[in-house]
C-alpha cells in the first residue's frame, strides 16, 4: 500500500467536509439529538428503575457507543455513495489505486467523519446529564476499536452491494444497522432475547461490547476476555467484508457496472 495514494483519496473527502458548513452541521446534529433523547430517557430510568438506579448513564453511554458504531458505518457508506452521486466512479477506478488502498482510505477517513459528529455530543453529555463515557476508563479504547472495526465491516458489506448491484442497493445502506440493533443487546442484557436469538447474538461482537460496557459501569470490574473476544469477532467479520468487497469488485468488472454507475 502506498500512503500518498491513501492520503490523496482521503483528501477528497476531507475537502468535501471542509468546503461545506451545512455538511459539518449535519454530522454534528444527529449524534447530539441522540444524546439529548437518550439523556432524558436515561434520567427517567435512573429515577424509576431498580436495575439502573445505582448507575447513572448506562443507557446514555450505550446510546453514545451505538451511535459511534452507526456513524462509522454510515460514514463509510456515505463516502462511497458520494462517488456514485458525483458520477466520479469511473475516474476513481481508472486511477492507479489498488482496492486495498481504497478500503484503507475510506476506513481512515470514516473515523475523521465519525469523530466530527461524536466528539461534541460526548462533550455535551457531561455537563448536561453528568454522564461521561470516559468513566469506562482504558477499556473504552478497546471497546471503541471493536465497534469501529465492526462498523467499517458493515460499511464494507454495503459498499460491496453498491458495487455489485448499483445505486439501487442504497436503501440497504441505511437499513443495515437497524437490522442488527435488536440482536446487539445495546440497551438490555442478552438474557432478554429468546434462546435461539441469544446464540445468533453471541456470534456478533455487539453483544460482547455492550455486555462488557454494562459490566464495567454496574459491577465496576473489567472482563478482559470479553473485550478480546469482541475485537477478534470484529476482525473476523472485517476479513469477511474485505473478501466480499473483492468478489463484488471483480463481479462489477465482469458486469461492466464500473464504467457507468451513477445516480
Amino acid at each position, binding site marked *: 500500500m502506498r500512503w500518498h495514494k491513501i492520503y490523496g483519496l482521503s483528501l477528497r473527502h476531507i475537502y468535501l467536509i471542509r468546503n461545506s458548513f451545512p455538511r459539518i452541521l449535519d454530522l454534528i446534529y444527529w449524534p447530539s439529538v441522540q444524546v439529548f433523547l437518550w439523556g432524558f430517557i436515561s434520567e427517567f430510568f435512573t429515577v424509576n428503575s431498580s436495575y439502573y438506579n445505582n448507575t447513572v448513564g448506562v443507557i446514555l453511554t450505550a446510546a453514545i457507543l451505538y451511535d459511534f458504531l452507526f456513524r462509522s458505518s454510515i460514514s463509510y457508506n456515505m463516502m462511497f455513495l458520494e462517488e456514485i452521486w458525483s458520477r466520479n466512479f469511473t*475516474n476513481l477506478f481508472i486511477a*492507479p489505486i489498488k482496492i486495498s488502498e481504497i478500503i484503507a482510505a475510506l476506513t481512515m477517513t470514516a473515523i475523521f467523519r465519525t469523530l466530527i459528529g461524536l466528539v461534541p455530543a460526548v462533550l455535551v453529555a457531561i455537563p448536561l446529564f453528568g454522564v461521561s463515557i470516559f468513566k469506562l476508563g482504558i477499556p473504552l479504547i478497546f471497546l471503541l476499536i471493536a465497534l469501529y472495526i465492526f462498523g467499517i465491516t458493515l460499511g464494507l458489506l454495503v459498499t460491496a452491494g453498491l458495487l455489485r448491484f448499483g445505486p439501487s442497493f442504497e436503501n440497504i445502506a441505511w437499513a443495515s444497522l437497524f437490522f442488527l440493533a435488536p440482536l446487539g443487546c445495546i440497551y438490555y442484557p442478552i438474557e432478554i432475547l429468546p434462546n435461539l436469538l441469544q446464540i445468533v447474538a453471541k456470534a456478533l461482537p455487539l453483544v460482547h461490547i455492550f455486555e462488557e460496557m454494562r459490566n464495567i459501569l454496574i459491577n465496576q470490574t473489567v472482563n478482559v476476555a470479553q473485550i478480546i473476544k469482541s475485537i477478534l469477532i470484529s476482525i473476523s467479520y472485517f476479513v469477511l467484508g474485505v473478501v466480499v468487497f473483492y468478489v463484488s469488485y471483480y463481479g462489477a468488472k465482469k458486469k*461492466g457496472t464500473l*464504467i457507468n454507475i451513477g445516480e
Partner: protein
Amino acid sequence: MDIKVQNLTKKFNNYLAVDNINFTLEKNKTLGLLGPNGCGKTTSIGMMLGLITPTSGKVLIDNQNVDSANHNDLLSKMNFASPYIELPKKLTVKQNLEVYGRLYGVKNVKNRINEISQDLNLNNFLNKNTGELSSGQKNRVSLAKSLINKPDILFLDEPTASLDPDIGDFVREYIETYKSKNKITILLASHNMKEVERLCDTVIMMKEGQIVDRGTCKELVNKHGRNNLEDTFLKIARSKNEMA
C-alpha cells in the same frame, strides 16, 4: 506506448456487445473509434482501461496484458476524459486536480496544476466549485484531469460533445498541439467527423460490436465513394437498412 487489441469479445448475458475485434494502435498515433450509439465503443474503451473484464481476448499495452498484476503501473501511464463522467462537484477545480495529481503519483502537484491551468485557461475558475462551472469549463477541467499525469496513452470519449464551436475548436487545437509536443498515443471516440478528420491518423468503424471498416479518413472516403467522412459514416451506419 502502443495498444494491441486481440480477439476482444464481451458478452453481457446473451447480448454480444463487442464481437471479436482486433486492431493495433501504434505509439504516438491517434486512432478514431467511430460507430453509431450502442455499437460497442464504450465497452471496448472500458476493456482497454481494465474497467470491464473481457469475455475472451486480450488488450496488450506495450505487450503487457491490461488485466495483469502490474495493472496499476499501466494505469499510471494512461488517462481518460469523457463528458459522461464527472469530477466531484463540491470540490473546487484546484482541489479536484490536486486529488487526482496525488492519486496518479504526480511529483510536484502544485507546479503541474499551475502549468495545466495556464495551458487550458483554467485560472479564472480554479477556486470555484466544479459543479458551478459551465459545460465548456467542465470539459476543460476534465481534460486537465486527464492530462495531470502526462499520460503516454490518452483515451478521449467525445471530448467536444456539447461544446460551442469556439470552445470545441480550442479543445481540438489544444489536443493537436499537446500531442505534437508530447508524442502521446490517443484513442478518440467521437461523433464529430470533422474532429476525427482533423485529429486522427487512422479510423476504425464499429457496428453492432464488430469492426466493419478501417483505414485513414481519406481511404475510407474514397473506398465508399463519398465526399467526406460524415457521409461515409452515414453510409456504413445505415448499410443494413439500405440492403434490406
